[in-house]
């Protein structure tokens, strides 16, 4: 059961991921990215992180991607034009990326052989209580600094948007 769910959603994530890269229209890419995020949320559930799965949908799919779609629609962005730079990047990039992926996979398979497995339900620390208490005790300082970062981000967005208005 675990393996079937994992395979279905891993395949979905990869297919959506390919769509993110290959679709020329930004709206299609954005929708594919939402698909990736939703599939990953299911995979988080398999890894015993229900809280993060919900937050993944809430923050990524529900807030960030809505913002992306909003901007795409606001700017009425059309399909991407072909350009010379892109062609050169593709020529140099594809071998490099394939090499990167091969090395990564090789290292992963060497470090974690088949015997190291993941069984659904054997680790259930991803509850709100556990994540929350870690967040507010061990990681209190990073948490507070993140709130500062968010504040700065809000100010930055307001300043940039304000200039744009007048």
């Amino acid at each position: 059961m675990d393996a079937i769910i994992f395979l279905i959603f891993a395949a979905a994530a990869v297919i959506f991921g390919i769509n993110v890269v290959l679709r020329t229209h930004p709206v299609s890419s954005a929708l594919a990215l939402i698909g990736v995020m939703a599939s990953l949320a299911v995979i988080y559930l398999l890894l015993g992180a229900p809280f993060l799965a919900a937050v993944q949908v809430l923050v990524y799919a529900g807030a960030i991607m809505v913002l992306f779609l909003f901007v795409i629609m606001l700017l009425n962005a059309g399909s991407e034009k072909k350009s010379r730079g892109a062609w050169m990047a593709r020529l140099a990039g594809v071998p490099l990326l394939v090499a990167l992926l091969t090395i990564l996979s090789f290292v992963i398979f060497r470090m974690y052989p088949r015997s190291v497995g993941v069984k659904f339900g054997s680790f259930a620390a991803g509850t709100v209580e556990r994540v929350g208490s870690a967040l507010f005790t061990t990681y209190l300082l990073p948490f507070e600094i993140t709130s500062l970062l968010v504040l700065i981000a809000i100010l930055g967005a307001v300043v940039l948007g304000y200039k744009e208005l007048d």
Partner: protein
Amino acid sequence: MNFFLLSAIKMAMVMGVLMLTLLYLQWAERKVVAHIQVRLGPYRVGPHGLLQPIADTLKLLLKEDLTPPGVNKGLYVFAPFLAITLSLISIVVIPFGPAIEVAGVQTWMQLTDLNVGVVFVLAISSLAVYGIVLAGWASNSKYPLLGSLRSAAQMISYELPLGLTIAAPLLMANTLSLREIVLSQSHYYWGWIPAWNVLHGPLPQVIAFVVFMIAAFAETNRIPFDLPEAETELVAGFHTEYSSMKFAGFFMAEYANMFTVCSMATVLFLGGWLPPWPAEKGSVFFPSVMFAAAGLIALRHGLYRARPRDRRSFQVIAMVSFGLAALFLIPAFAQFFSPLFWFGLKTGLLLFTFIWVRGTLPRFRYDQLMRFAWSFLFPVAAVNLMATALLVAIFG
């Protein structure tokens, strides 16, 4: 019993009741708005227009399914499907009643209880905007696009006060599971006053409840926040280009969303299925008394109406009410159905408020809508949350 079989049975029951509710919610809305405007509302199809929803459904089914030229076909079809799916998913975590035992099988009147239930509902409701945004964009038309842009901005803005007001009762309940939230409200002060979060110390969540309801109006695109489909400005907003069953999908999604937010408000603030005063002090008899009173009123109307059809239909309604009153006197029946009765009554009153407001208030202007969210609702919700946190830390 087999887990899957049990789940399937529960799902079928919830779906059946929900679909019926959605159909008749639309009838109730038309009737209530009509009476607010001193009209009769649907009256021709069946007694008191009771068969009107079925006639409407048939009409929409038989209508031609138009696909305008120039639309993005895939997304155009996908959008209403998405809207209705997302609006129905949240129902799975709503607890309708306590644990019951039927023929030796013990189960909860809830499809499933997640330990992150509240976050789940928030996550799903934050996705609801996609149905609208995609519909507007895929239609490839001016007004739908404007409607969906408005909708995206509005839903992001009102999600913040909504989230903040949901957090306040969570601080008092100390859990994210909706079932446990209801159970945490199950005692009574001085034996009478219910410890619902809206009345529960250290800080009664009255403000949170009001802000939640206002934000819920905006999240469901209802008047006075129905800017995405403002017919005087945008024809019909995001669903201008939709017809037939696809239009019905959006229509149903709106009502399903209304039902979900009202049941969320019931669970979070009004104690879910719990009666407003203890059962041993007579709240078990309330359904009987209420249905009997309704029956008497209907009977009185039936006897003195000029119209012969009313004379018959009101008496049937009276008999049905008396029958229900009698049924609620049977302990075995009341045990199952009085939690459902209280849940339904609370949710129904909130739904009535939605319809009542629709018949009463005019629409906001767009800048007013945004200013209201950011400079009034958001600060109020934030201050309420901080005050609750402080008081819970001191007294809790």
